[in-house]
């Protein structure tokens, strides 16, 4: 037995001697305590990258557009049922579990974090301002959709529950942030870098909608807020950086970083470098037999289409651009695609998968059950396809703020402050460039329609409909809805973990 004790102690000595400390070592990542080498520029790039979820068929776009009167994602027989997610959006019958709504909420707050995180790493004055702009933009979108904006002051410990900024309080926070950073943002430079005019445009959005955030069901608009909108618009104009584009679709073309004379803030897309999924804007609507073949989904509603005059280039034109196809028949290739579609290389008339003419019909239903279910619905192409980069990263920068929007916001503010005539001038100046006949008078409905014609599928429709009080109305496929739908539900996956959130009424 004595021997055993000796051997045992020897064994234990060996074992203890060979003990390891068990510290994790990272080889393809960096650890926080080891993060001195991280530069704010690297984090800022990541913060910009989080914004790519804004693009068409991104969560936020789906929430803002499919829920409105200018877009529909019909279930086409065997296709696009997707467990009813799209129908729930269009009929506003969503609940707190809706994937796209919770996806949008989480994605925006992810942007908020990524932007805030830049501030932890000793950014330069401009870097800090850019990050705070991104954060303000994300928080603003959360305010707009959900009214409750979680805000993390101290990023060091995830156990600290974020405070929640609500309604006007959140709007005021966004305003104060934007004002604080204004002078630190670049006055010039590319549209895909946060800049002073982008901050002004965002401020205009906040002021224009502030009445909504105070009372969504019956908003009133303070004269001071409207005056701010006008002032900011004039400041943007005064920078002389923007002009209304003679060719509407130049703003969205593959080279829109150069040709897009209206673009104030965009998301950078560059083949061979990086970018978001701007191609989805084509794929989401394009029929399988078109070039590029797409997913044959989203359409617009015929009532919306009918608001355009035939001469209005925004409704659609033959748009010749260097990255386009030969298009020998000079067929309409942008805007609202309706009727027979053509092969843009050979000009042959296209057929659907059953051999019937590929001719988009104005009528479309939320559930398509007819023999022509492949071709129902007018399709919308806002971003001209970048054919040299087919099936690859497209070069079209994705537009968030545009000068035409600024002008229409100004017109609306003038109108709301009683200066309909002043507003009319602004609107008609714009319409003239677009090829539309001048309006004779400006009232809220006319302005609302004009915003629709100008900004369709750019992600602002839900907000506009709420501001103009039409969001709960009836349109194709959608019954009247109650005031609870003016807010999205707080996603159940956040509600269950964040005690500082309360579910919005009606959910």
């Amino acid at each position, binding site marked *: 037995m004595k021997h*055993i004790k000796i*051997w*045992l102690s020897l*064994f234990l000595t*060996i*074992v203890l001697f*060979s003990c*390891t400390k*068990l510290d*994790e*070592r*990272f*080889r*393809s*990542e*960096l*650890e*926080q305590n080891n993060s001195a080498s991280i530069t704010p520029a*690297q*984090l800022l790039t*990541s913060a910009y*990258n989080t914004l790519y979820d804004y693009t068409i068929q991104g969560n936020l776009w789906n929430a803002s557009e499919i829920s409105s009167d200018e877009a529909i994602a019909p279930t086409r*027989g*065997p*296709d696009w*049922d*997707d*467990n*009813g*997610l799209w129908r729930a959006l269009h009929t506003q019958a969503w609940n707190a579990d809706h*994937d796209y709504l919770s996806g949008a909420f989480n994605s925006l*707050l*992810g942007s*908020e*974090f*990524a932007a805030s*995180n830049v501030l932890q790493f000793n950014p330069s004055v401009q870097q800090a301002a850019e990050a705070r702009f991104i954060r303000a933009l994300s928080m603003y979108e959360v305010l707009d959709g959900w009214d409750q904006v*979680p805000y*993390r002051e101290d990023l060091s410990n*995830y156990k600290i529950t974020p405070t929640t900024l609500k309604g006007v309080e959140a709007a005021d926070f966004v305003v104060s942030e934007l004002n604080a950073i204004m002078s630190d943002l670049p006055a010039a430079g590319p549209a895909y870098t946060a800049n002073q005019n982008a901050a002004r445009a965002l401020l205009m959005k906040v002021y224009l909608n502030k009445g909504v955030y105070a009372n969504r069901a019956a908003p009133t608009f303070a004269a001071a807020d409207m005056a701010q909108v006008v002032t900011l618009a004039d400041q943007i104009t005064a920078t002389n950086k923007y002009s209304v584009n003679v060719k509407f679709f130049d703003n969205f073309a593959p080279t829109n970083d150069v040709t897009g004379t209206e673009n104030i803030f965009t998301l950078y897309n560059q083949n*061979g470098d990086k970018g978001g999924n701007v191609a989805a804007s084509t794929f989401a609507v394009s029929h*399988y*037999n078109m070039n*590029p*073949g797409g*997913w044959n989904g989203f359409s617009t509603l015929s009532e919306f289409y009918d608001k355009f005059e035939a001469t209005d280039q925004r409704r659609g034109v033959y748009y010749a651009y260097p990255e386009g196809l030969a298009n020998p028949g000079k067929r309409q290739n942008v805007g609202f695609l309706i009727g027979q579609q053509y092969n843009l290389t050979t000009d042959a008339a296209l057929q659907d*998968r*059953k*051999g019937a003419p590929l001719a988009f019909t104005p009528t479309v239903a939320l*559930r*398509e*059950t007819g*023999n022509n279910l492949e071709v129902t619905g007018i399709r919308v192409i806002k971003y001209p396809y970048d054919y040299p*980069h087919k099936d*690859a*990263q497209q070069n079209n920068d994705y537009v968030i703020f545009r000068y035409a929007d600024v002008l229409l916001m100004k017109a609306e503010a003038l109108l709301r402050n009683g200066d309909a005539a002043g507003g009319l001038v602004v609107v008609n100046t714009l319409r003239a460039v677009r090829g539309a006949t001048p309006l004779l008078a400006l009232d809220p409905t006319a302005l609302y329609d004009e915003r629709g014609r100008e900004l369709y599928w750019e992600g602002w429709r839900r907000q506009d409909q709420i501001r103009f009080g039409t969001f709960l109305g009836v349109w194709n496929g959608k019954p009247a809805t109650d005031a609870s739908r003016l807010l999205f539900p707080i996603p159940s*996956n*956040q509600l*269950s*973990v964040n005690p500082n959130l309360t579910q919005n009424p009606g959910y």
Partner: protein
Amino acid sequence: MRQKLLLIITLMCFCFLQSIAQQKTVTGTVMSKEGTPLSDASVTVVGQKTGVRTGSDGTFSINVPATAKQLTISYVGSETQNITIVNASKVAVVLETNSQALENVVVIGYGSARKKDLTGAVSSVQAKDFNKGTYTAPDQLIQGKAAGVLVINNTGQPGSSTTIRIRGSSSIRSSNNPLFVLDGVPLSGGSARAGGQGDNGTNPLNFMNPNDIASIDILKDASATAIYGSRGANGVVLITTKRGKSGVPQISASASAGISNVMKKLEVLSADEYRKALKDYGLTSGDFGNSVDAFDAITRTAITQNYNVAVGGGTENGRYRISAGYLDQEGIVESTDLKKISANFSSNFKFLENKRLGLDINMLVTQTDENVIFNNSFVGFTGNVIAQALQWNPTHLLIKPGTDSAWIDPAVGSTTVNPLAQLRYFQDKQKVNTVIASISPSYKLTNDLEYKLIYSINRQTGVLREQINRLLNNQGVENRGAATIGNAELTNTQVTNTLNFVKQVTSNLNVNATLGHEYLKYDNRFNFQSAQDFPNVGLNYYDFIGYSTQNSRGIGSGASTTTELQSFFGRAILNYKDRYLITGTYRADGSTRFGKNHRYGYFPSIGIAWNVSQEDFLVNNSLINNLKLRLSYGKTGNQEFPSGASLNRFGFGQQSISQSNYGNEDLKWETSATTNAGIDFSIFNSKLSGSVDYFYKKTTDVLFEQNIVQPAPGGKIWVNLPGNVVNSGVEISLNAAVISKKDLTWNIGGNASFLHNEVNGLVGFYQTGALQGQGFSNVLGQRVVAGQPLNVWYLRRFEGLDKATGQSIYTDGGNTLFYSGSPNPKMLLGLFTDLTYKKFTAAINMNGTFGHYLYNNTAASVLGIGNLGTRNIAKAVLGGSIQEAISNAPAPSTRNLEKGNYLKMANASIGYRVGNIGKTFRDLYISVTGQNLFVITKYTGFDPEVSTEASANGIPSIGVEYVPYPSARTFQIGVNFTL
């Protein structure tokens, strides 16, 4: 010292006295049943300690007292025999292989124990009881063979991955796979297989050659698994490979060849039926006037060849076994195959005069080569090659007339991919090389105490070469072409020190104690490059990837966060009077993964057992031969969450860095507390034996990647949930020796497990079960939610078709989803029988699972009515009392949720023992084996034994069938012999 001297002198005198007593000489030979001379067998006179050993020709000569009546002949691995020598001077002894002896010792992790000393729930399957046929990985050998063990071949692909669940699923998020240990080397569960885009992944255990495996022991309850601590919660599977037997070198060889065909074809419309359907639906287009069976065109009669040769031999102090295997398994889908070349070397040496120094050296070297097709589950709406074949319009030719070209005819629809083109224009080659080497010296410090070291390295490298031809009409690839090259490596290192103490302390008390220390390190790296835009010049794109366009290129690389595990463990088995047994185990596991506040986890267990049949009142009872009651309780852990989850990490993007998570410093293992009560019995002269076990396993601190309070990085955080998962159940296994006569033996065995699974206390719900196909974007059909079984189905309720419109009717218009049953089987069944009549043998193995629901995603989204006019549909879609509208959306609902009950004749074999042919071939055995012979089920898909990949949000899924690689039915003939 003086005393010892005295003793020796006395002994010498005694021997001398003995030798001058009346003596006689007995000579003889010792042979195996197969007629092999056994060398080094021990021959002793009964009641005496001295004896002789046989020579290499098996002969011996021994002087015995004239009064000696019996000799004892013993040989490792054989039944010890006593033979009478009263009137004999020459004897011929034939020793039977002692299967009983092997079965009575069970490998229990860091040692072995007599089966009768066990207090835990352990199932042991010997090679002779393995499933018959050709298998690529060891887990398939025990399917249906052990109670409480679910093995699902996920698809029919050669080398397919499997789903293994021991006593149900106890983890929500992390792996539910058991820990596999190969000859004392714990495996990480990972593989260096690089994986391509069309690929479903294969079994990480494919590197093993099933022919080299001697036994598989499955540790199920905490008394058995707690010695594996933080990796024991999902059970432990111990694989023991064959060892050389002492004796002259022997070559044993086997060869088999088989043919495989599709076990079940799905019924789709023939060309004529399709034309009729078009007419019935008033469709004018869609008939191309021909008649084609695309599924036949992509499938084939596949040939499997398997050759194994092993050389074993040695002496009692130095044994070795060298084996080599070659498997060439063609898949039943054209252009798929798996080739495996494996070599195995094992040796056991004893050194020094006192033989106290032992040395085991093992080495396994394997290369697998696979050709994989595009049959992934996550392939988008144009489907994988199986879907493309099923959907192919039966009136349209696959090959363009007058050419050999797989036809991509826009007329059949631009989104329709010709399955033959998909096969020809898509290449995915996977190569994995594995070397596992271990060296294990041991030294007997005293007679009772042995020190042992195991040092092992498991090194794998994997290479992927993949290309998609520019001719294929895949979005993004057409007219461009694509190629990917990928590399992966895996290096696992193990150092295990153990001290074993085995002693009979008093006549009534036996002690078997183990103390150990273990260090494990897991290391993975990968890199890949992909590119596009290649010309067709008759070469493989991946061999000149530099031609590609700059902007199409993608690269990536990564190295795993170091994962190290350091453990201290101990076990003591006390046996009092062979009646009262107690086992205590304890393991402390330290892991780099755990948060700094919980670096070490502690896992104790205790088991007690009572061998009732050893009590005086049962000894020699003719009815009850063995009766043992077992009770155990213990805690085991699961630490299968990603490394780095406890720390804030920053990941790299292109020229950017972002924080990828919030680390949880409190993160730790999940703990399963298992109570097990069991009874082992054998009755009626041991003709009927079996076990019944009840277990209750409550898993707490459940590891989960929970939603984090936003704004936060990554959206999720790894936590130990306050909720719990409960698995409970009853396992019964029975074996009956129905007939055991000289010329006729017949055994029947079976096991049944009844499992219950429930999630409690989870806040909110989490979704998984990704359903696939056109119209199924972002559809998740399963939930993890409190009060329901794990992965409960959550779907719309289908109420039939509307008579007027032919559209589906759903409860509440489809706006409400319902909990619709569990995908986890409630009952597992294994049945097997074997029969020997003279030289004939026969064996049948069946298995089944019951009480669960499968989602037939193939029927739901691949073969729905909406295809009519462009693509094919399932025959079952037609012919109902209500004509389904062609526009009826194939929405995910209970319509395609089917009962998964099945009973499968997994394999059956008949054989004939030819015996020796001349002097060269000995022990010749020929057999015919069938695999997947038939399935009894109401499930309408390919095979109810299925689980295609459907995980989402990182949460594993089970029970979805989405156009899997179809199962094969195989017939093979095999021959075994020794030289």
